């Protein structure tokens, strides 16, 4: 009897000290995706989930190999994680395929179109979508760039997030009476030529959250400066690199939003009762240094649309 009691106490202690195990998987190493992951960890830290104390993270990265994404998901299942966070569409699809018949919660992040990705409708799955407001970006360009008629867009047709957004750009451009010229770039090496092909053909360039363009952004910036073409890129962290207009959200914030969903799940709300959320809080930044360099003038009305400005190498955020 004494032994049994002792055993119970020991097990009780182990049970109390056992941290929650969270597996975090992503398809590649990428600044935005890493920022997203850091945001998730930060959201949990703020709520008192400290790594090594009451939570243990298992980080995995498929390094672009889709079969590894599947192996990671299976590894998480075999290790008995308490919750999975899957960043990007393919990693999320692999995780959902492996975990769909379990009751282990899955929270996806940085998935542009979770419905088309087949992630919705599983009781243990919820998450955050990084879908940007393409139409709002086009409307902004119409207000800021006088006489905008022809718009160029570079995208990687092999990236599901980007292809979705390009389809939406086509639709919105048609509705707004803008002629859209789409140039594909199947890899970072193809971006410089794709950008140069737009020289003299467009009044502005607009790129969405395309990972390939993000990786070869300097090539697009170079062309926009050489051709004095206004360039809008849907990533506010790229402003200092020389983009004229940056919109959208920071992936760290997207990570924070994802982290909030993870917290809800950890506090006991079943994933099926948490609808997936779209990232809100779009920012608009104008780079006045680049404007001066390419002789572009933001009208006083246009400047009112900005939530922040870059001027003399410094960021000024409107309150």
């Amino acid at each position, binding site marked *: 009897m004494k032994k049994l009691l002792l055993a119970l106490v020991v097990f009780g202690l182990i049970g109390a000290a056992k941290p929650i195990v969270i597996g975090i998987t992503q398809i590649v190493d990428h600044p935005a995706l890493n920022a997203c992951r850091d945001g998730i960890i930060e959201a949990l830290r703020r709520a008192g989930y400290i790594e090594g104390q009451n939570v243990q993270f298992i980080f995995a990265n498929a390094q672009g190999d889709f079969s590894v994404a599947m192996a990671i998901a299976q590894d998480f299942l075999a290790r008995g994680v308490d919750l999975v966070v899957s960043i990007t569409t393919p990693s999320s699809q692999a995780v959902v395929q492996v975990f769909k018949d379990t009751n282990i919660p899955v929270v996806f992040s940085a998935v542009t179109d979770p419905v088309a*990705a*087949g*992630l919705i409708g599983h009781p243990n799955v919820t998450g955050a979508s990084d879908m940007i407001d393409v139409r709002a970006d086009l409307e902004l360009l119409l207000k800021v760039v006088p006489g905008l008629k022809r718009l160029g867009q570079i995208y990687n047709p092999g990236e599901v997030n980007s*292809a979705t957004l390009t389809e939406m750009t086509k639709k919105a451009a048609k509705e707004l009476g803008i002629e859209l010229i789409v140039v594909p770039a199947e890899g970072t090496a193809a971006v410089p030529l794709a950008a140069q092909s737009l020289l003299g053909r467009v009044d502005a360039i607009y790129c969405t959250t395309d990972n390939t363009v993000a990786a070869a952004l300097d090539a697009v910036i170079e062309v926009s400066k050489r051709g004095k073409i206004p360039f809008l890129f849907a990533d506010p962290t790229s402003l200092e690199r020389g983009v004229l207009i940056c919109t959208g959200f920071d992936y760290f914030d997207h990570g924070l939003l994802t982290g909030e969903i993870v917290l809800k799940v950890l506090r006991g709300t079943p994933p099926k009762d948490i609808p997936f959320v779209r990232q809100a809080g779009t920012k608009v930044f104008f780079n006045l240094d680049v404007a001066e360099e390419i002789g572009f003038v933001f009208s006083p009305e246009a400047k009112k649309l900005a939530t922040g400005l870059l001027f003399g190498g410094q960021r000024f955020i409107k309150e």
Partner: protein
Amino acid sequence: MLFLGAAEQGLIYGLMALGVYLSFRVLSFPDLSVDGTFPLGAAVAGILILRGFNPFLAALVGGGAGLMAGALTGVLATRLRIPGLLAGVLTMIMLYSLNLRIMGRPNLSLLGKPSVLNGLAQAISAPRGYGTVLAAGIFCAVTAVLLLLFLHTELGGAMRACGQNPDLLKSLGTNPDNLRILGLAISNGLVAFSGALVAQYSGFADVGMGVGTIVAGLASVIIGELLLRPRSLWGAILAAVGGSVAYRLAISVALRYGAAVGFTASDLRLVTALVVLAALAAPTLRAALRGESP
């Protein structure tokens, strides 16, 4: 249970390894088109499944598409005299665009759609949890036996001779070019069929899923040969599948124990390569330890 996933993946990718074995070892043709034919099978099967076709039929049609793409590489390499590596690369590049066309978008979700692996697992009433690995094993075994039987036919024998000594074949009045085209067609058919099964297994088809197919295929064939030292044709075929399982096991080991020895997620490829390297170097090192010259 620990490495069940590796066994599942190893067997499904084992069909791909059989295809690579056929081109690389039997025909002595390092064929890079597999990076394109693997997702081709996935794309064709994926779109057919979404249209309501039977998943087995979809996988067969996917394999058939790979068959044609492989024949194309063969025609480029033999009839048009394009160097083999380049012929494979050209087919691979063409298939990237074609795969996007077939799917209409870069990624198709097959989550919750019928899968031939699940179907077969139910049909044989496999024990819970082991359905996929048994179904994948059956596919692999049937394919391996068919391939073995084929290589023992007169045509298959000629194909083996073609890889070893094409001049001999010519002197016997057989055209080695036709055999190469046929061999590459079968090889890529197997690779595409494997891609079709992987799409059903993973719950999605993606235009990027072919990246690294040739590396995984070659690694499987070579690891298998080193581990099993095959001396016969059936041994070589068994080795290709065994090597595929060993390769996936290496990835699982890297995922599971990499962190414990201080590796981070970004070191995965290095760890995997080191595990493969260890398997490759083991015989030489063992011989050296015994004091023999390698």
